[in-house]
C-alpha cells in the first residue's frame, strides 16, 4: 500500500507498560520519584512510562539506554508479546491509521504481526524454532501469512537466505547448529519473509564477536537501503546506534529523557544521563 511520506508510518502515543498491580501511590506515572521506576510502596515496575514517538517510512530510529531502561519492553509491546497498560499505536497502512492496534482483536493482531511487522530478538531461541530447519522457520512465517504453495515457499526461503548470506545448501539444517551470527541472520530473514513495512530489532548484535557483529550491522544497512523498511533499532551500544540511525531516543527507567538527531545526541547531549553515556563511548 502506498502512503503519504510526510505522514508517520507508525505513531506511538503515551505507551505505558507496568509490571505489577500498581497502587494509589504510583497510579500516575508522574508521581513516581524522579530517577526511579519502581514503586516504593507496592513494588510495581513501570517498565515503559508514557512514551510517544513517530516512525517514518525508510528510516531507522534508534532507542538507546542501559539494560533495564525499558527498551525491550517497549518493542515487545509493539509486537504484542506484552500487553500494554496504556497508550496507543497506529499504523498508517492499517485501517488508514485510525485504529489503535493495541485494542484490536487477537485475530487482527495476528494479521499485523504476520504482515506489517517483523521482530528480531536478542535471544535467537525466542525468535526461532531451533530444531526446525532454517527453511522451515521461514516457511512457518510465510504460511502464517497465507502462502501455501510449496514451490513458492521454497523459492522465497532460498531468496531470503541468499539475501542474508546463508548458503542455500544449509537451508535444511536447524539453526541450533549455526553460529550466533548465522542464527541472527536466519532470524532477520524470517522477520522479513512477508515484506513487513516495519522491522523491530532488539539488541541483535549484542554478545556477538566484533567481526560477526559488523556483518550483521552491514546487513541491516543494506536491507534499509534496498527495501526502505522502517526499523526500530534497540541497543545499549551507542556505536551501533551511531552507525545505523538518523534519529535517536534515549531511555532511562522507562522514560524517554531525550530525543533528537543522532549526531546531535552524540555531540550535544543535554540530559545528564546522555552526557554520561556519550562520555563512556570508547
Amino acid at each position, binding site marked *: 500500500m502506498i502512503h503519504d511520506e510526510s505522514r508517520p508510518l507508525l505513531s506511538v502515543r503515551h505507551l505505558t507498560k507496568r509490571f505489577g498491580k500498581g497502587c494509589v501511590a504510583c497510579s500516575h506515572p508522574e508521581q513516581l520519584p524522579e530517577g526511579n521506576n519502581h514503586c516504593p510502596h507496592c513494588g510495581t515496575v513501570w517498565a515503559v512510562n508514557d512514551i510517544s514517538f513517530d516512525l*517514518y517510512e525508510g528510516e531507522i530510529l534508534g532507542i538507546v539506554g542501559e539494560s533495564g531502561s525499558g527498551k525491550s519492553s517497549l518493542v515487545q509491546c509493539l509486537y504484542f508479546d506484552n500487553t500494554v497498560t496504556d497508550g496507543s499505536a497506529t499504523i498508517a497502512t492499517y485501517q488508514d491509521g485510525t485504529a489503535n492496534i493495541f485494542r484490536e482483536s487477537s485475530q487482527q493482531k495476528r494479521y499485523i504481526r504476520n504482515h506489517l511487522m517483523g521482530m528480531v530478538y536478542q535471544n535467537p531461541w525466542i525468535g526461532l524454532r531451533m530444531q526446525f530447519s532454517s527453511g522451515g522457520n521461514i516457511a512457518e512465517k510465510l504460511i502464517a501469512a497465507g502462502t501455501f504453495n510449496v514451490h513458492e515457499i521454497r523459492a522465497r526461503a532460498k531468496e531470503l537466505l541468499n539475501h542474508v548470506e546463508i548458503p542455500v545448501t544449509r537451508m535444511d539444517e536447524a539453526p541450533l547448529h549455526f553460529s550466533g551470527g548465522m542464527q541472527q541472520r536466519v532470524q532477520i530473514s524470517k522477520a522479513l519473509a512477508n515484506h513487513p513495512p516495519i522491522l523491530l530489532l532488539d539488541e541483535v548484535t549484542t554478545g556477538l564477536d566484533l567481526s560477526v557483529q559488523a556483518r550483521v550491522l552491514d546487513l541491516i544497512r543494506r536491507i534499509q537501503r534496498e527495501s526502505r523498511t522502517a526499523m526500530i533499532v534497540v541497543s545499549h551500544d551507542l556505536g551501533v546506534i551511531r552507525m545505523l540511525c538518523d*534519529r535517536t531516543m534515549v531511555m532511562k527507567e522507562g522514560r524517554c529523557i531525550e530525543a533528537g538527531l543522532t549526531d*546531535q545526541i552524540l*555531540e550535544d547531549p*543535554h*540530559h545528564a544521563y546522555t*552526557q*554520561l553515556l556519550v562520555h563512556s563511548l570508547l
Partner: protein
Amino acid sequence: MTALIQVDQLDKTFLMHQFGEKRITGCRDISFTVNKGEFIGITGQSGSGKSTIIKCIYRTYLPTGGLIRYSSDHYGLVNLAEAPDRTILTLRKEEIGYVSQFLSIMPRMTALEFVMESLLEMGENGLTARKRAKEMLAHFNLREELWDTYPKTFSGGEKLRLNLARAMVRRSRLLLLDEPTASLDQASKETVKERIHELKAAGTTLIGIFHDLDFMESVVDRTYKLQDGLMKEAQKK
C-alpha cells in the same frame, strides 16, 4: 540580493551536568547574513566559536537562543534553530552539505561506495552514481588504487579529500566547510580551490572556516572575524 541565511542573535551554551552544572559558552549573540551565491569566510582564534556556529546551522548542536532563518527550496523560510528533526534530515539530504574538521568514514565501506552513497541517497541510479563518484575521486586526485579499499587506513589528507568529494559530488545549495584544508599539501589545496570555484559557478552558497588565510582570501567574497565574542565584517583589502 536575496538572503539565503540570516543568523540572528544566535546563542549556544553547553550545560555540563557532570561538572557541577558548569556552563560553557560556545557562541553568544551572533548575527550575520549570507546572500544567495555568496562565499563567506569566518576567522577567529581557536576556541572563539567558529565551529559552534557552523554546527548550529547544521544542527549538530541545538542552539540555545536566536534564529537561523534559511530560505529553503523545499520548505520556504525555515528557522533551522527550531525546525523539527525530520525537516533537518530532509534539508541535509537535499540542500545543506557539511564537511567537518573531524573526518567521518563508514566502517567497511570502500572509498568509492562512500562517495556513491551520497548520490544514491538522493535517488540517483547506480550506474550514474558510480560514474560521477569516480569522476569526483579523480578530481580530488585520490589515487585510483585506493578507490576500492576501506578509508580507515587513509592518511589525513586522503580522508579529507574523500570527505570533500562526498560532500561536493552532491552540489548542495548551501555548503558548510570547517577547515577543509587543514591537512592538505599545496597541490591538494589547488585542487580544492578549483572545485570551490566550480561550486561558485554552479550557484552554491558557502560558509567556511579556513585556517589558511591566503587560501581563504582566494575563494571568499566576504570575511567575518570573530573577536571577543563578536562577529565583525572584515574590511576588504
